């Protein structure tokens, strides 16, 4: 059900863009106003989110420790799993962000018959790095595709674009050259979506908000691929539009083709949706207290800005209460 809602939403968005441009002639709306609005929402929204998180204090140092702490000098510590200073904490974070370190640990369990175990069954662990692989493939392809798009946003085209294009199109197949990232991207997002349907636990927890970005991404990638390989759009005009937007002199050239507007509109939706959804995990991960703090609590005092005094049973009151018992046991009293 949740998946259907999400699919409907994405299809409706596509139709909206298609009808808007092809029948109502709303090119200016979809070519200029919506993109500006989306980017504004993104910038304000993400800043708001990050500022909101950043202004909430971190009262305690609650590092999740995943390895030996630094203790006695002759005991080998694991500074990347249990960082003892800020530098190692930053490296740990870099591993999380660049290599999805924690996801790499993923395993899957099942309950299998085993006569030696009590009750006749036991837990078996199997490796399960597909989620890691799929997620990593998706994110890196997303990044590369995003960077490749800079050929539309820069004049002269920035140096990394041809570089990426060469790398990406390394296996020249067909004309125009097929970019691997585009295909891997679709495959990876497809896998993530399929997983949401086929893994019973993941399906059970999935909300509409989990399917929506995946359908949206497939819509974006799909329309992009169609434009590149099947229904050519006028790339020169697209660049004109983009450069206009970037230079704050929006010009909306005629005859780009509605497919492009669908593509652009879905991207705008993604961009505007970003700050209000789980997609903010991109910013959030950097602020995650269990991952970005060093495990050095006993060596350096962490300050809680709202630490407040509490009701404590003081020694004096305690001694008063147990005076007779203390005397009977021959234990010394403070108040003679």
């Amino acid at each position, binding site marked *: 059900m949740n998946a259907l809602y999400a699919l409907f939403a994405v299809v409706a968005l596509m139709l909206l863009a298609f009808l808007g441009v092809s029948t109502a002639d709303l090119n200016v709306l979809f070519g200029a106003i919506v993109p500006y609005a989306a980017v504004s929402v993104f910038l304000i929204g993400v800043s708001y989110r990050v500022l909101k*998180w950043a202004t*909430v*204090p*971190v*009262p305690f140092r*609650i*590092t999740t*420790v995943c390895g*030996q702490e*630094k*203790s*006695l000098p002759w*005991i080998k510590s694991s500074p990347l*799993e*249990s960082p003892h200073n800020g530098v190692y904490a930053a490296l740990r974070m870099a591993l*999380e962000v660049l290599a999805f370190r*924690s*996801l790499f*640990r*993923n*395993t*899957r369990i099942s*309950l299998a018959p085993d006569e*030696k175990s*009590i*009750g*006749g*069954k036991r*837990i078996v662990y199997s490796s399960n790095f597909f*989620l890691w692989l799929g*997620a990593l493939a998706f994110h890196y392809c997303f990044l590369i595709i995003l960077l490749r798009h800079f050929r539309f946003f820069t004049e002269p085209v920035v140096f990394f674009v041809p570089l990426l294009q060469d790398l990406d199109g390394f296996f020249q197949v067909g004309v125009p050259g097929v970019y691997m990232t585009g295909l891997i991207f679709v495959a990876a997002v497809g896998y993530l979506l399929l997983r949401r349907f086929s*893994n019973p*636990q*993941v399906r*059970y*927890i999935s909300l509409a*908000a989990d399917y929506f970005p995946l359908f949206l991404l497939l819509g974006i990638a799909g329309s992009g691929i169609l434009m590149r390989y099947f229904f050519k759009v006028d790339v020169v005009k697209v660049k004109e539009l983009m450069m206009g937007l970037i230079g704050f002199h929006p010009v909306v050239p005629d005859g780009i083709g509605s497919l492009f507007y669908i593509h652009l509109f879905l991207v705008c939706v993604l961009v505007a949706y970003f700050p*209000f959804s*789980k997609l903010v*995990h991109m910013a*959030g*991960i950097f*602020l*995650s207290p*269990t991952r970005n703090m060093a*495990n050095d*609590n*006993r*060596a350096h*005092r*962490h300050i*809680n800005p*709202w*630490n407040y005094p*509490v009701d*404590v*049973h003081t*020694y004096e009151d305690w001694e008063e209460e147990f005076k007779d018992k*203390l005397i009977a*046991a021959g234990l010394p009293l403070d108040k003679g």
Partner: protein
Amino acid sequence: MSSEELDIKPEELLDFDYDPPQKDWMDPSVAFRKGTYCYSAAPKNLEYLGLPNPRDWQPHDKDWKLPPDWKETILDGMKDRLSKFRSFQLFMDICVRCGACADKCHFFIGSGDPKNMPVLRAELMRSVYRNDFTAAGKILGKLAGGRELTEEVLKEWFYYFYQCTECRRCSVFCPYGIDTAEITMMARELLNLVGCNINWALEPVANCQRTGNHLGIQPHTFKDSLEFFQDEIEDITGIKVNLPINKKGADVLFVVPSGDYFADPGTFTLMGYLMLFHEIGLDYTWSTYASEGGNFGLFNSHELIKRLNAKIYLEAKRLGVKWILGGECGHMWRVVNQYMDTMNGPADFLEEPVSPITGTKFENAKSTKMVHICEFTADLMQHNKLKLDPSRNDSLRVTFHDSCNPSRAMGILEEPRYVLRNVCKHFYEMPENTIREQTYCCAGGAGLGTDENMEMRMRGGLPRGNAVRHVQMKHDVNRLACICAIDRATLIPLVDYWAPGVEVTGVHELVGNALVMKGEKERELSMRGDPLNEMEDDEDV
């Protein structure tokens, strides 16, 4: 009730699968089935601590006697905490429901109940957060994953947030480090605001506030118990160990979880400490006021952590010691490592800890001034300051259970292993998915280790039990060592159920066995009073 009296056989307990039900999880529903939940806290305990809404009630009652404005109280409490804990705010916002954490929780693994998947446990609260604290939820409601906070939802919170042992295993696997334990801690604080506490978590707090320890042991009884162990040691070794209590001006204040002077097998570990300190001539003291290192406040609220924990520094100051040494305990070390200094420091009246025997500076503890006994003992061993005869533990085939908090909230993995390898010759590790940072909970932590919760404990104990059984079959392991007082109580029924024949032991119990003391008589008995080389021998004849 022990696990043997649990009238569900392991076969029946394992008769479930991991397929979630048809029903949407958003519809709240809980059945308080006997054996799977803990009883409510007695009103006297709430009254003693000054907590809200003390009353007679039970979770299985239809009417929970909530205060009329309970909903407002909870939502206000949520708002307050969202602005005080970045962890809470962030963890409400960034979960992508990837499911990596789903099958990492021992309670899910042993029950198949989807609401025991860490992600769904957290969603129970996140759905309310979305409904009341996000724009999308306010407008779109259920479509955006929002749920109104109803009494049914509250009951669900109670059931599932007292079915999380705050072990943090899920957090290890989450790509963003989302720690469901942190969410559980918030949920319990909120539940506490309207008087929905459990007795097993709260009574120890009331006891500790009053007497200084969870078990409510008063100073004269404390002293009697220690003297009893002194006599036991004399029987075994012929040596009367010294027993300094409330001694002003000692070098070191020693703090242990009260379970260690209350019940076997913790007591054997405590005897190990007494012998060790006597043998090395440590100038230290016990305290009757700070007679608890553990801190059940952790299982209720941050404020209660601070109230109980304050006594340790207060007592260190009053006695004028130089630094503090802490015994084997799991959650105690979470508090010491992650909360104590922040809450009740700075301990600037103490000195940076230095071992008086080896001269080693414990630089990693230079601010809290509190050292873990395994760090202390490992250092002694590395400097060859102890005479050890590991053959006295020859009849023991030992494996080591990393307790949740020492591993995931501290990172003390090697020290206990180093100590164990020095005192026994037969040491075997359990499979790697079940130890170190991936270790499994005993399923009785965080105040859930009570008998009425036995079915759930045995379910949650399945992955640990399986792993123990594995080394029992493979290497004839007969001892499960740990450095946690809760474990020493909760692992016993667990292994009786899932790996019968294995006994639970503290690390310093084995140190006590192996320690060769100056002037001791020939040792014939172990700390348990069993003949040394025949212990547990005839078990598998």
